[in-house]
């Protein structure tokens, strides 16, 4: 159990594709992402539940969550 908790997901953000619409930031249920300038950045990776809502609702094919 402790080991499972330690394993963090990997969130890949394509800086070229991201247009900074902040949809992923606003719809993230656990507030993992923040806006850094004009593109999105990972703020609190430990809170990520791997729900993939950011990936599903990203219009720019820019964000992906790997287990």
């Amino acid at each position: 159990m402790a080991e499972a908790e330690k394993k963090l997901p990997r969130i890949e953000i394509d800086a070229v594709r991201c247009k900074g619409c902040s949809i992923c930031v606003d719809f993230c249920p656990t507030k993992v992402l923040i806006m850094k300038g004009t593109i999105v950045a990972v703020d609190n990776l430990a809170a990520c539940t791997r729900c993939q809502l950011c990936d599903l609702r990203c219009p720019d094919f820019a964000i992906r969550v790997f287990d």
Partner: protein
Amino acid sequence: MAVPAAKQRLSVPFDYDKYLRPGKLPHIWCPGCGHGIVLKSLLRAIDKIGWEKDNLCMVSGIGCSSRTTGYVDCNTVHSLHGRAFAFATGIKFSKPELNTIVISGDGDAMAIGGNHFIHLCRRNIDITVLVYSNAIYGMTGGQYSPTTPAGSYATTSRYGNIEPPFDPCEMAKAAGATFVARSTAYHTKELEKILLQALEHKGTSVVDIIDSCPIYYGRMNKFKSASHMMNGLEKDGTITVAQAAKLTPEEIGGRQLRGILHQAERPEYCENYDNIIVKQATATKGA
């Protein structure tokens, strides 16, 4: 405490790039535009149904939504404004084995191509039509379109739109389409399921997809951001058919119905034509 990772098993995220032309992204759609979300749902549905890229043909007209064909790596036609339906009919008719999808916007399908749209539905030819309804002509600067709600603002309706909007689903149903559904870009998973059913359906299937134009429609109608617009129009502005069945018309209010709105069985156009060929050939042989 963090959510136990073991319970949230995640396979490898969907690889959209295998359906996209390399080097074409980032796309031209504005920040927060719903078209990208709809395209992702469509690609997942195509992957689920397992169609080969070579057996798939996407046809589009003109408009923001119609740029889709430039990004998807299959047989694509970027045709004339509103004429995607006519092009698609020709393609499907000459090569019935091609899985044909028409991508069009609300202006493309309801205004400029309105006539072609109703005749496509009337013939019940096996084509899936996706109508991206963002209630605006985005590419040309935000003019109001046939689906712009009465009272809302656009560059050409500065004092509020006085025209009542079209309902693409009612129009498709009345014209004879055999599968009519509506979903939104907000409900991505639901949209994927509906698109899958629409692709599987034999006959004309029309899916009206409500998505957001935060740059033109959103700015003029006091939506602060793309997500604010998605919450306001797509989440709160729609209701599923099952939920609506339990409510009175007053309780539903101005909310649009979501889900499969109409499904029917009717002979398909290409099959009818093939039947005539077979019938005539046997008649000539016998004579």
